[in-house]
Structure formats: structure tokens, C-alpha cells
């Protein structure tokens, strides 16, 4: 008979679990954490300054111009939104599939989702060029008619999809945190901590009736988040697919984008988890190599799906018999921006194949490097889709190239500053593994006691 692997190592008691998980937020921060936080914060400040310059001067500082009207902002928006999707996949979809290994990574993956969506959400708002008028995006009664928003536009669907996604992810994450805040409240030795976590816990006391409602709501939110997450990247892909531009106007986009999003998100989860394991060694008993291996398998599988989508796009371009469609795809691989296409294929399709070998899937340095390549590759995927399709369209007189500027780099790099600042603060202030969820699965795979 196949033996189940232990989900929590080191024969922990209930008390040990609580103490291990809240340790990082009860002790004085380590030098490494302070160092990383200060660097991330410096980068974040740099980002804010960049945003201020770009907004006060104008979008012209970026490389966007005719014919490439969508550049770094939209590419990086899709990149970050995609990252968020792995968090929801882990917390909601794997929950519905009763995958118990998800428990120890779900909290941090959800945090990643919330922060990635926050980072992403800024880009379309800035890309409007006049962000002080962004409230025009919402249908509100106004004195211009009232002139309502155009509900037939995929860009408006995006407003609804991303804001719903941000709200529901945040609420889902917070609901899961409530019992853990209560744990921290009851352990608090000083008044301020008791007050802050007491307020965050909303007075949770863990009665059987509350747990019954809590578990039901958790299940409902998982059930609602599952179609939601699929809809969000589907709608993001509609931003492209609903237009008539060759290279964008394809029906494969929704599933292709969703697979890519999950792929890139798992890449980011692996990057962050390897770092969390190094920074907080007590978490190694909860986020085990087995967990990392499972996630690497998902990276490999979704990497193959993405590779299939790349191949299928080329086949359909040829099979359609449409000369514009054929031209765009030949141009994509062998034109001016061919290098970006091959970076994308190498990072997303070729490099993850190393995970066919078991020892590679279980090696922390290898998976860290691969996950970085996946992140790079997936950013280039969005670059390829956006820029190569726009730069050579139907008429040669309408061709041009993207004038990548210093500000493009600054915006892209700076956004990591924002994400990492939020993530590092989260690691210090919130329990990074769900205490109340890990306790019921502690005995899975142990001798004599079984899961259900």
C-alpha cells in the first residue's frame, strides 16, 4: 500500500505548532530580515518617486508611442495579476480537491495573491495617464448626462473583475486569519499587542458553533473564488482577444492565460517559500521538501500547457490561411523582437523540464533558480504578446518599435519593491502558516494515526 507522507515533521504537539508559527512575530527581527526590509523599502521609495515623475510629467516618459500604445504598464499589470492566481489556486481550488498538503503554504500564497493584486492594480490606474480621474472607471451617477461607462468594453470588464478579485481575496485571507489572530491575542504579553490583535481577531473565541459556521464560510469562499480566479485571467485575456489585431485575436487566449498565470504564480510561490525556509528555519517542519516537490510538479505540468499553447498558436496561424496572422507569428519568432520570444520559450518551456528528474525537484538551489527563470520567462511572455503584436500590424506604413526607456525599467523594478515591502511586513506581523488549519492535519501520515 502507498504510504502517505507526513505533512508536519518533528512530532510536534499542539503547543509546539502555535509556538513555532508565532515565533517570527514575537521575537526581535533578525539582521537578515531588517536588511531585506530596508532594501525592499528603499526600492519601494524609488518606485514612488518614479511614479511621481511619470505621472507629473506624462506617459511619454515611458516607451509607449504609436503604434505601441500598450507597454510596460500593461505587461507588468498582467504579470502581477498572473502571480496572484497561484495563491487562489492553492487556497481555494486545492481546498476543494481536499489536498491537505496545501494547508501549510495556503496562508502565505494568499498573502502573495493579495499583495500581487495590489501591485498590479496600480498599473492600469497609472496607465490612464490622469490617475486623479480614475473614479470615472466606475459607473456612478454624474452630471454629464449621466454618461455611463461602456459595459461592452473588455477594459471595463477588467475593472469589475480585478476589483472583485482584490476584494474577495482580501476577505478570504482575512477570514482565515481571524482564529489565528485570536491565538496571538491570547498569548500576548504586552498591552499594545493584545489590543491590536484583539481588534483584528474581532473577539473570536472558537466555540463549536462558530467553527461550524466558519468552516462553511471557508468552503463557500473557496467555491466562489474558484470560478472567480478563472474569470479574472479570462477577462484579462479578453483585453487582448476581443480586439481585431493579429496575434491577439485568438480564442485560445483565456485558457492559455489562465495556465500561464498559474505557472508564473507557482514560480513566485517557490521563490518566496525557499526564502521563507531560509529566513525562518522553524518553518522547515511545516513547509517540507515534499510540499516543494509537489509545487514543482505543478510548475512542470503548467509549463507544458503553456508550451502547448505556444505551439498551437503557431499551428492555427498557419492553418487559418490568413496572411496577416501568419506574418505576425513568423515575425514573433524571427523578427525584430525574436530574442524576446526565444527567452520566453527557453525560460517557460525548456528550463522547467529539469523537474522530470526527482533529485532536481527536491533540490532547494535548483528550484530557486528555475523559479527565477519562470518569473523572467512569464514577464517576457506578456512582453511578446503585447509588443510584437502591436509593432508590426496590417500596414507596413504603420510599423514601429518600442522605445524602451529608463522609466520603463524603473517602473518594472520598482514594483518589486512594493511587493516585497508588503510581503516582508506580512512575515513579521501575521502568522505565516495557518495555525488553526495545520492542527487538524498534523497526524496525517503518522504511524498508527491516520487522516480520514
Amino acid at each position, binding site marked *: 500500500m502507498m504510504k502517505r507522507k507526513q505533512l508536519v515533521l518533528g512530532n510536534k504537539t499542539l503547543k509546539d505548532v502555535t509556538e513555532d508559527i508565532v515565533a517570527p512575530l514575537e521575537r526581535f527581527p533578525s539582521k537578515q530580515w531588517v536588511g531585506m526590509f530596508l532594501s525592499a523599502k528603499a526600492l519601494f521609495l524609488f518606485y514612488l518617486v518614479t511614479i511621481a515623475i511619470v505621472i507629473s510629467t506624462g506617459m511619454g516618459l515611458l516607451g509607449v508611442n504609436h503604434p505601441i500604445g500598450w507597454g510596460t504598464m500593461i505587461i507588468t499589470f498582467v504579470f502581477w495579476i498572473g502571480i496572484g492566481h497561484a495563491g487562489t489556486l492553492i487556497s481555494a481550488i486545492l481546498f476543494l480537491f481536499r489536498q491537505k498538503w496545501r494547508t501549510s503554504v495556503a496562508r502565505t500564497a494568499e498573502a502573495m495573491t493579495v499583495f500581487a493584486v495590489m501591485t498590479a492594480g496600480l498599473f492600469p490606474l497609472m496607465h490612464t495617464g490622469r490617475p486623479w480621474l480614475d473614479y470615472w472607471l466606475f459607473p456612478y451617477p454624474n452630471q454629464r448626462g449621466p*454618461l*455611463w461607462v461602456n459595459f461592452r468594453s473588455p477594459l471595463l470588464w477588467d475593472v469589475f473583475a480585478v476589483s*472583485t478579485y482584490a476584494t474577495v481575496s482580501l*476577505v478570504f485571507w482575512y477570514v482565515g486569519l481571524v482564529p489565528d489572530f485570536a*491565538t496571538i*491575542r491570547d498569548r500576548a504579553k504586552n498591552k499594545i499587542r493584545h489590543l491590536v490583535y484583539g481588534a483584528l481577531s474581532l*473577539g473570536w*473565541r472558537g466555540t463549536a458553533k462558530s467553527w461550524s459556521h*466558519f468552516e462553511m464560510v471557508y468552503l463557500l469562499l473557496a467555491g466562489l473564488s474558484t470560478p472567480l480566479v478563472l474569470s479574472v485571467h479570462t477577462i484579462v485575456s479578453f483585453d487582448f482577444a476581443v480586439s481585431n489585431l493579429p496575434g491577439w485575436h485568438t480564442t485560445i487566449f483565456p485558457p492559455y492565460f489562465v495556465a500561464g498565470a498559474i505557472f508564473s504564480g507557482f514560480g513566485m510561490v517557490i521563490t518566496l517559500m525557499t526564502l521563507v525556509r531560509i529566513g525562518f528555519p522553524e518553518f522547515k517542519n511545516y513547509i517540507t521538501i515534499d510540499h516543494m516537490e509537489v509545487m514543482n510538479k505543478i510548475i512542470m505540468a503548467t509549463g507544458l500547457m503553456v508550451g502547448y499553447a505556444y505551439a498551437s498558436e503557431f499551428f492555427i496561424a498557419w492553418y487559418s490561411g490568413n496572411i496577416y496572422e501568419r506574418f505576425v507569428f513568423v515575425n514573433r519568432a524571427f523578427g525584430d523582437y525574436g530574442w524576446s520570444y526565444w527567452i520566453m520559450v527557453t525560460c517557460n518551456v525548456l528550463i522547467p523540464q529539469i523537474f522530470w528528474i526527482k533529485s532536481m525537484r527536491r533540490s532547494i538551489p535548483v528550484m530557486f533558480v528555475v523559479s527565477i527563470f519562470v518569473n523572467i520567462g512569464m514577464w517576457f511572455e506578456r512582453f511578446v504578446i503585447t509588443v510584437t503584436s502591436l509593432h508590426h500590424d496590417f500596414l507596413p506604413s504603420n510599423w514601429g518599435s518600442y522605445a524602451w526607456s529608463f522609466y520603463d525599467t524603473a517602473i518594472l523594478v520598482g514594483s518589486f519593491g512594493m511587493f516585497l515591502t508588503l510581503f516582508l511586513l506580512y512575515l513579521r506581523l501575521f502568522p505565516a502558516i495557518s495555525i488553526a488549519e495545520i492542527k487538524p492535519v498534523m497526524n496525517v501520515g503518522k504511524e498508527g494515526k491516520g487522516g*480520514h
Partner: protein
Amino acid sequence: MAKYKQGLAAIFLTEEQILEAARKTRERGFTKFEAISPYPIHGMEEAAGIKRSWIPYVTFVMGLVGLSAGLGLTWWTSAVNWPINVGGKPLFSLPAFIPIMFELTILFAALSSVAAMFYACGLPKVNPPIIDKDLTCHKFAIFIPEDDTGYEESKVQEFFKSLGASEIKKTEF
């Protein structure tokens, strides 16, 4: 604000004990007791006689409300209040409105489920009395309020002892 009740609480150290204790407390005819645990325990609903949560009905109804709100909003703004011809598409272009209807369905259903949970669990509570600080960490408890049927302090004390409670407290909850 909810009033807190006086009563007796027994503290237990293992999951098996609390399940057994909840089952026996229910069998003795107590109906207003609370079973407190640091995490959801499999089988506790059956043991303590808790009915299935009613929140899914809220979710379903509010999902339908969200769906209708999405339909109503898009139809009224695009076809009634200020009809504008966009690219020759019909004023009421249903397929294009489906994403909005879908997102509002999810939004309404999710937020109202959470609101219903807050209502059902009596949250938020400001600094409620807790029986023991370890009940959110590694201990479990049964609390029987004074106004429960057949409550008699000495008998309840004895009953808790027979269940193997590690500690018995007169407390507020």
C-alpha cells in the same frame, strides 16, 4: 451587545476527551452549552448536536441578487437611462454584460456570506471574557451556563469530574 452568562467550565487536554465530553453533555439534556477548541474538530457537529450552518442559503440568495443587480445595472444604464450606439451593437447587448453580471454575483455572494458569518458568530465582540488563554492554543473546554435546563452547580461539577476534566472553573462566558 450580547450579554455574557455565568456558568461552569471544564477544561480538557485532548481532542478525544472534548468530543466525548460534548456528546455526554448533550446526552444529559443540556442545550445551551458551548464547546470551545483551538481548531475545528472533525465530528464535533454530531457530538454537540449542532445543525448544519444556514449560511449557504444567504450565499445563494445574495448571489441571485448580485446577478440581477448586474443585469439591472447594465441594462438600465446602457439601454434606458442614456442609450448610446456603440459600434452598432444593440443597446441591450447581453453577451457583453455577462462578465459584469458574473463578477457582481461572486462579489455579493462572497461579502454577504462573510457578513452572515459575523452575524451568526456574534462578531465582532469587544474584549469578550475568555475562559482560559490556552483555549486558542492547545486546550479544549465545555462551558455550561447557569440558565441551562437542569443546571445545578454541584451536579455539574461532579459531571465534569467524571468526564476527566483537568480543571473546573466558575466563570463568565
